[in-house]
């Protein structure tokens, strides 16, 4: 009982296999090809894709057309015999069908030619034109499928007669059964295979169609994915993606700062004694700086910030720079805090000067006196 399905099973395995092989071939050709990738234009890729899609649809139309014509032929022969009774309408339908399928071929070959002529560039006109062609192709396919179904249904209705209409069950569960091509449980003995293992029997149900087509879809996705990244180079690889995102973000930040008008940087920063600024500065100091410089600035892992000695300059600009960019063991903070915040911390650090906290670390660096060694004020 399973022999009939046997071939189907084999066939679907072959189909899957061949798709997989395609994936690999497409891919390997690019991986092992040496040399830098050609720099592609996205438009080309798109056009290429559209054309391929059109061609695929064309093939589908061709196949469906053949099927329909074949069916119509069969029908016509059948009905010719019957026509002795009721002749005319059948001839008309068949003729009409043939006409439809033929005209669709005509349409399509034109379309393909037009599209392939415009692969080079892709103006909006070309783009929408191609899209409309694809839409038309899809419509034609739908029409063909509809016609085939109509023809087939007649056959089946005659065969099944009342049986199908017997159980008009709830729509959801019948939809579910259709999606899975369930056979009613009562009829499953027909599907039972002639073996059992330790009492375990096996049925030979058809593969759920959505499962099978889902599988095909993922394989096609795989081919397109590999094609885009490694053959046509039309999708950015990790490194390129990074460059793009950084560039975009930089522009955004620049635009934001320009609009906001924040101008503080290491060249324009000045000491602030404003209580609010110092309060803000202290807050940041307690989260970011205390671990190394201690809460009172006396220093521990990092140097003492309250004495007269500075390793990298004691003026506001130097301190700002040290905080912002970091140096040696001092981490950079520009990625965590804005220039304004860094200015606030720097001012707060300067406010600690001379507080002489207990247990402070010995001086490190050079003696710094105000207005000495600092950059000349403009």
């Amino acid at each position, binding site marked *: 009982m399973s022999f009939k399905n046997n071939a189907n099973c084999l066939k679907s395995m072959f189909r899957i296999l061949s798709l997989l092989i395609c994936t690999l071939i497409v891919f390997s050709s690019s991986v092992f090809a040496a040399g830098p990738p050609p720099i592609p234009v996205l438009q080309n890729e798109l056009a290429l894709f559209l054309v391929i899609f059109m061609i695929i649809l064309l093939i589908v139309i061709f196949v469906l057309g053949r099927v329909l014509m074949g069916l119509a032929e069969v029908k016509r022969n059948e009905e010719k015999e019957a026509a002795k009774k009721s002749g005319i309408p059948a001839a008309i339908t068949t003729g009409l069908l043939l006409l439809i399928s033929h005209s669709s071929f005509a349409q399509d070959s034109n379309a393909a030619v037009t599209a392939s002529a415009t692969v080079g560039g892709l103006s909006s006109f070309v783009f929408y034109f191609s899209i409309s062609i694809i839409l038309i192709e899809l419509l034609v396919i739908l029409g063909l499928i509809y016609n085939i179904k109509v023809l087939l249904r007649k056959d089946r209705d005659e065969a099944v007669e009342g049986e199908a209409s017997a159980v008009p069950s709830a729509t959801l569960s019948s939809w579910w059964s259709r999606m899975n091509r369930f056979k009613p449980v009562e009829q499953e003995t027909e599907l039972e295979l002639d073996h059992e*293992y330790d009492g375990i029997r*096996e049925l030979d149900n058809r593969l759920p169609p959505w499962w099978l087509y889902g599988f095909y879809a993922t394989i096609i996705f*795989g081919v397109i994915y590999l094609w885009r990244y*490694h053959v046509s180079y039309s999708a950015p690889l990790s490194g390129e993606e990074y460059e793009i995102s950084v560039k975009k*973000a930089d522009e955004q*930040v620049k635009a934001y700062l320009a609009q906001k008008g924040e101008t503080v940087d290491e060249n324009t920063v000045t000491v602030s004694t404003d209580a609010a600024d110092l309060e803000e500065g202290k807050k940041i100091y307690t989260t970011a700086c205390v671990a190394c410089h201690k809460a009172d600035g006396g220093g521990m*892992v990092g140097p003492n910030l309250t004495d007269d000695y500075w390793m990298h300059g004691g003026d506001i600009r130097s301190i700002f720079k040290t905080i912002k960019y970091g140096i040696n063991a001092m981490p950079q903070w520009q990625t965590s805090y804005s220039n304004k915040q860094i200015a606030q911390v720097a001012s707060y650090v300067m406010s600690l000067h001379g507080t002489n906290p207990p247990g402070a670390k010995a001086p490190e660096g050079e003696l710094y006196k105000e207005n000495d060694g600092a950059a000349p004020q403009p």
Partner: protein
Amino acid sequence: MQVEKFYYDNRIVRAFGYATVVFAVVGMLAGLWAAIQIYAPSTSLNLAPTTFGRLRPLHTNAIIFAFVGNCIFTGVYYSLQRLCKTRMYSDTLSWIHFWGWQLIIASAAVTLLMGYTTGKEYAELEWPIDIAITLIWVVFGINMFGTILKRREKHLYVAIWFYIATWVTIAMLHIVNSIEIPVTFMKSYSWYAGVQDALVQWWYGHNAVAFFLTTPILGLMYYFLPKAANRPIYSYRLSIIHFWSLIFLYIWAGPHHLLYTALPDWAQSLGTVFSLMLIFPSWGGMLNGLFTLRGVWDKVREEPVLKFMVVAITCYGMSTLEGPLLSLKNVSAIAHYTDWIIAHVHIGGLGWNGFMAFAMLYFLVPKLWGTSLYSKKLATNHFWLGTIGIILYAVPLYWAGFTQSLMWKTFTPEGQLRFQFLESVTNIIPMYITRSVGGTLYLIGAILMVYNLAKTIARGKFIANEEAEAAPIAHKTHQRKEYWHRWIERKPVTLLVVSLIVVVIGGVVEMVPTFLVKSNIPTITSVKPYTPLELQGRDIYVREGCYTCHSQMIRPFRDEVARYGEYSKAGEFVYDHPFQWGSKRTGPDLARVGGKYPDSWHYNHMDDPTSMSPGSIMPSYPWLLDKRLDTSSTPAKIRAMQKLGVPYPEGYDQNANKDLTDQAEAIAARLKKDKIETPSNKEIIALIAYLQRMGTDIKLEQKLADREAAIK
């Protein structure tokens, strides 16, 4: 044909069954303890063996190889005899297998807690144990094949295909990934370095999931589900297609653990597309399981065994959909390194593996003791506790992973990182607490099961040798037409060989170019081998399991470059035996931690992390400050590295310790300047040396380039 009488061996099934139950509880306890440590670091007791870095490998190994491993063997030893209509090939081999495996588990537990580890996830066990595993696996293979060859059933049932594929693939994975060069009795270095090591490791790691946690369990499902439901398998041809496509495709998917890393892009893409193609083969198993229950769903309402199976199969379906989606680069960018992944694996672990194991035990124990289950009600309670436990475990972690990832990636409009790393950790601590509550519920459920099974056993009588009879295989040729696949079902050896060929392909295509084509790992001239002290420090890093919480791989994202520095390059890892890229960021990335903080910061931080970063959940490592560094191993380590191709000068092994002492003294002197007095021969000094080296070779290259530019 004369019907023969024979006896199934139930004793071995019972032994493996007991082991399953014991290690379920042990493994889950270890997991729970580790989970609690994440929000209460002091529960590590400040002892080396019980810190997270050592407990976590213990948990993963105990669950995978002890709990699920024993569960597989229980199921295989029970079902294989019955599907082949024969007793196991050799009782002696069965018992060697049993005791060998338990001995491996015991030695694994001891050595992992002592800090003997290779530093490769799920393959942490050191080389002597690796060899023991190989031997025992061969014993299992001989026993299994012997049984299959003397079977009284002409064709092999689908469950056995899965057992065969499991056996051959695990053998391949284990051997290839465990190639390492022994240094001392319990210390070895991976044969592979950096990118290559990462590729091999995740080829192994991913397929340990595939062929240890998935295919054998599918085999068990194909046996126990139709048995428990008394229904025929839904579709034979679905079995065929999903079996072959599953084992073929799975092998390729490893690189999806390495998206956006320094692994060559083409290998990453292969990982992505093959993972996506895996959805439907995996779902084939789920559908075949669930559809088998068509017509008996009313039974599911009453029968605890079926309840567990339905949730298990559903969890399998969910995590095999989630996995491929996580393999898409844009999803991986969010989920990788976060708790999302932990949630994902636990849907599979708690849901699929755990519940299948429970279902099997609830089914088997009454059968083996010739009685009925002590309490269905208790089992149903277990079911609900477990299910709620899974939800309480997973949902908070999904939330935590998503939140944390978003926090990492958020910038202020001025272009600064919005959150410090630590803020992203403290923010999700409530989720960690909820997760451990979920885990506790799940564990309580398992303990209920232990009680229920004990009661069942108490009221039954064990059937040690179960009588059965069957006719031997009739050796007449089949003339009538049949399914083409029936042919291979008669030929176990062919099935074995074909399975091996099918699973070899993916690995070969991914690994051979990565190993041979030079452009895959561009050389960086400034990258130099580790100094002897750094090498010793690195081994301490591996020993303490730092990789369980810290990655060493900066991905090419704007936020990661802002937070950690220039993104990692393949050429930076050429001397890393083993690689330490990690897979989770409970703490920040360390790839470029070198030079970021002063030596004294590290010293204080290892002694008490909260002193340097208040609110930190990292455990303390006070013993590193006291323990003397064992320098006697230095020459052997240098020689091993030389054998692996690390370019130390000829005869350097004899001078290495002198360099080591010099560097250690320099560090001790720097610490002294920061008011820290410590002898230079402590382990902490070596660890600081390693930490300060990490990721600095590239900075050096920049400096050299700058200087060159200045000269011109």
